[in-house]
């Protein structure tokens, strides 16, 4: 069973503007962690909003867990598709952390006792349980974003969409979020779609999709992604420093079986792939 499926989807924001997605096809299997890359305006957010029924395509079909999204079932679909947006400030609805996590639960008519329990549990999952009564303006961006994840997780969705959830955070906040995502990945069989334009964030992904101009430009894995370095650079994506270094060293006859994403991998690759030097 596939978690998300786009079948020949056409979408534009209004009649006058050009199509953002033209004959877009994509299948994401259940339990996969997928990173979607692409520069600004390549249509990543549009895709994620379509999955959750916040936007409706002009033609084509979108299926979530093999069910076609219709106006009649969109609220059901949203229960299964949690979404975390880019700006931590603008998705914090409640006046305190507890209220914010409760918001989604209240919307679903969850009874109060269960609400309390789920709030506690999901705050524990993101390591924010001691901030229960804090107000948003006393939290850092990274903390707010973890609350946003907790709020979504409290609904127990099967699919989690993160639309550039780390792009407005400082390096510390980014690390917090990535660690949170990693624990979520370990815990459950959730399908995760991480939209990002930061190539360093793909370590967590089983599959990488690169979008360009509303189309899938590359569909690959993190091991193979940087063998396409020319293609990536040609659409304006910057390579991680370690990959650039590796590419430079290749000119001097060094070899890299895998393009390293960080210094640890870089060292390892440098040793193992060049043993007979």
């Amino acid at each position, binding site marked *: 069973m596939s978690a998300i499926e786009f079948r020949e989807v056409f979408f534009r924001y209004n009649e006058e503007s050009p199509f953002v997605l033209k004959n877009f096809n994509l299948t994401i299997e259940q339990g996969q962690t997928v990173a979607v890359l692409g520069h600004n305006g390549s249509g990543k957010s549009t895709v994620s*909003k379509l999955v*959750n029924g*916040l936007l409706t395509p002009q033609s084509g079909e979108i299926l979530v867990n093999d069910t076609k999204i219709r106006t009649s079932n969109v*609220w059901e679909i*949203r*229960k299964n598709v*949690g*979404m975390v*947006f880019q*700006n931590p*400030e*603008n*998705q*914090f*609805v*409640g*006046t*305190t952390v*507890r*209220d914010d996590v*409760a*918001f*989604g*639960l*209240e*919307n*679903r*008519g*969850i*009874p*109060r006792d269960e*609400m*309390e329990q789920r*709030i506690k549990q999901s705050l524990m999952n993101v390591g924010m349980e001691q901030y229960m009564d804090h*107000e*948003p*303006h006393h939290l850092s961006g990274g903390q707010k974003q973890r609350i946003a994840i907790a*709020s*979504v997780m409290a*609904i127990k969705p099967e699919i989690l969409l993160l639309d550039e959830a780390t792009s407005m955070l400082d390096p510390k906040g980014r690390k917090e979020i990535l660690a949170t995502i990693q624990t979520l990945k370990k815990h459950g069989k959730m399908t995760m779609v991480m939209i990002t334009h930061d190539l360093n964030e793909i370590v967590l992904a089983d599959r990488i999709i690169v979008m360009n101009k509303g189309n899938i430009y590359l569909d690959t894995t993190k091991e193979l992604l940087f063998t396409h370095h020319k293609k990536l650079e040609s659409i304006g994506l910057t390579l991680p420093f370690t990959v650039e270094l590796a590419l430079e060293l290749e000119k001097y006859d060094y070899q890299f079986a895998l393009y390293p994403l960080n210094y640890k991998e870089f060292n390892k690759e440098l040793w193992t792939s060049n043993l007979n030097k």
Partner: protein
Amino acid sequence: MKSFMIIGQFVPGTSSLHKLDPRTKMVTIFSFVIIVFFANNVLSYGWLALFSLALILLSKIRIPYILKGITPVWFLIIFTFILHLFITREGPVLLEISTFKIYEGGVIRGLTISLRFLLLVLVTSLLTLTTSPMEITDAIEELFAPLKKIKVPVHELALMMSISLRFIPTLLEETEKISKAQASRGVDFRTGTLKDRMYAIVPLLVPLFISAFKRAEELAMAMEARGYNGSEGRTKLRELKLTNIDYIAILLYVIINIIFFTLRQ
């Protein structure tokens, strides 16, 4: 700025006033606002003043803090007093300075009206001092719930209130950021004629509004993504519950009012 505007500033605490259900506080305090106007002699005014003082003591908030908090209102109270002193011409003349005459009626009228004013301000500010804005919002939603029958969007209004409360700090921070950014580009908010300063506000307001609209749009999107679909079928995490302390308070309040009405003429 913050120190003298405590009207609307919540002081967290654990006093019995803090513990009361916000609905109890709102209903009693608003009825008090009306009852103050029924006072008509020294005894009834004294009784109400005593009641207000008791409330202040119960709240465990420091009296100087409360008095300082209503600074802007002090001015109004004194102004009202002086105004009545000069305008009212009733009763015997108490004092005569060249053409000005101060009558006994003026003094009495001035005193009673300023006292009335002071009591109103003190007691209503106690409401906001001991009740968090969220509690007030919840209480409004509950108290006005019957209006849903005549299609007043009570839930939506309460949600709007709570979201506004949540975004006040965000927007204040943003205002400060923008005003600093504009000041560094040479916009002068502090000097010049009134007209100049009004014009200087424009480069502050325009970016502030643009960003507020963007926030609103994103927030609406996030709320929809989290399943917000109006009040129907919605449960609430916060629950307002009348406890013993509320029943005691209501009983006491009724007794106080009975005494009040026997004291007045």
